[in-house]
């Protein structure tokens, strides 16, 4: 049933991960950065599932982990967006470059 070799899937997940990181580094918009982080988390999810399915099919802890990650990601996103909204209230902008008062 599983014609797809594991390496392909890992390639996808890794690619996803680095795309996420790239987005994190380059995007100015806070929401987009958040999305980039979600990409990273999803690549992690794929990893877990794949490892569980291909390498250690005996137990399900990888899958469980995935579920938890998804949940927590949601929560994280919620809080993050709340904060971003508040930031917008104060700064009238959600460009990360505008919130650099604290430095050095």
């Amino acid at each position, binding site marked *: 049933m599983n014609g797809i070799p594991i390496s392909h899937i890992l390639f996808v997940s890794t690619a996803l991960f680095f795309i996420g990181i790239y987005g994190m580094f380059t995007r100015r918009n806070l929401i987009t950065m958040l999305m980039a982080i979600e990409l990273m988390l999803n690549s992690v999810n794929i*990893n877990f599932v794949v490892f569980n399915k291909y390498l250690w099919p005996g137990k399900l802890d990888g899958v469980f982990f995935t579920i938890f990650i998804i949940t927590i990601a949601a*929560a994280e996103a919620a*809080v993050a967006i709340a904060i971003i909204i508040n930031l917008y209230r104060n700064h009238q902008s959600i460009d990360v470059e505008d919130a650099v008062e604290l430095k050095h």
Partner: protein
Amino acid sequence: MWSDYLQLIKAEGLVAIIMFILLFLKLGKKERNTESLLHFINVLLVINFISGFFFNAEGTLFGDMFQTNSLLSLEKNILNLGTLIISLQSFQWLKGHKHILEFYMLLLSTLLGMFFMISSNNLLMFYLGLELSTIPLAALANFDLEKRTSSEAAMKLILSSAFSSGLLLFGISMLYGATGTLNYQELSQQLTGTPLQILSFVMFAAGFGFKFSAVPFHLWTADVYEGSPVAVTSYLSVISKGAILFVFVSVLYRVFQNISVVWYNLLFILSVLTMFIGNLFALRQQNMKRFLAFSSVAQVGFILIGITGQSAAGSASVIYFILIYIFSNLGAFGVVSLVSAVTGKETVNDYKGFYKNNRMLSWVLAISLFSLAGIPPTAGFFGKFFLLLAGAGKTSSSGWQLNYILITIAALNMVISLYYYLRIIKAIFMDKNDNPVEKVKSTFSPNLSFIICVAGILVTGFASSAYDYIFSLVK
């Protein structure tokens, strides 16, 4: 059956119960006298702290995802104490605040998360605890809703923590891929030290490094500390840092023992970097909170040296130091928060001639700073001494004696750090100031917290029993 079940998660249970009580209060009628409410909460926290000494059992739960023993309950109780002190100190600040209950609920939920993290016996449980202790903190950082810096700080915290947890998770996933288990014991047997495992370990450690702000993962620290309310800052700098360090120590010693050579080198680099960068940044800070932030970064460098000791003495000295560190750092933060709550002054220059009108506060601040600097007879001296001693005790595998090089660097860094602590002392006692901070009148709860802190600083060092107790637990 039920009884010992409850007994095992007693600490977590108590915190949860307190949260629920607060929740009900919230649901109840609106108008309430804030002061009495705060006192009530403090009483609850005192009860929580005291009960932390009793009915501590050993065992595991949830298919050994969760474990507890007397050492862990001691660590939890140390955190309880810290939380209590912070809540006492933030009295002045919260008095005028609308959302007291929310504040405490968020605070306690992070505490709960830390407890789970400490008791975790499984990476999943650890991850859950970590997130539970991180995400509410971001909300807390934003607690001064209308302050620009506060929201900026919160944004920085949530983004970088999410990023770091992403990397951490990636590490965990690779670890899982390499070993096929999430349970600590099995993991420790599976580890053989293949490059993949090491890479994943480094990512894993980076996640920790982010939380206890080791260079180069520390950059969020100063900004968040400066931006967020002082109570939250002190909570970040003491409680969450302490918790994650507890976990780090136990994880390293219990899980990654096989690749100890690797993490010895890793910690060597990290601690040297952390000490130097922390000190060098702290040298030129003007804002007290930011200054304390960097000083606490530097402190982590010393703690890491203690961890490299990698022995009973190592972990014992680390726990002991964190206990002392809570007293010292909270003493300093307490004064800062009180002053900033009353007068809104936060820069070093504002503290010039501070001694003129505030004798008591000046001495509290001075003693705490001496303790942070590691000057006898304060407890900080003992803590630092034992940390470095533990670090020196590790005979490194490589030919030339890294451990002595490490403590030499550390000792010299202590001199640098002494400089900026003395800078504050100088400002308080020696510098002239035409309009120094006028008399800051302090109420019962802050005073109580100061008494606790100073007593802790002065007693913990001489009373060797504290250290002996911790040591006996660790062994």
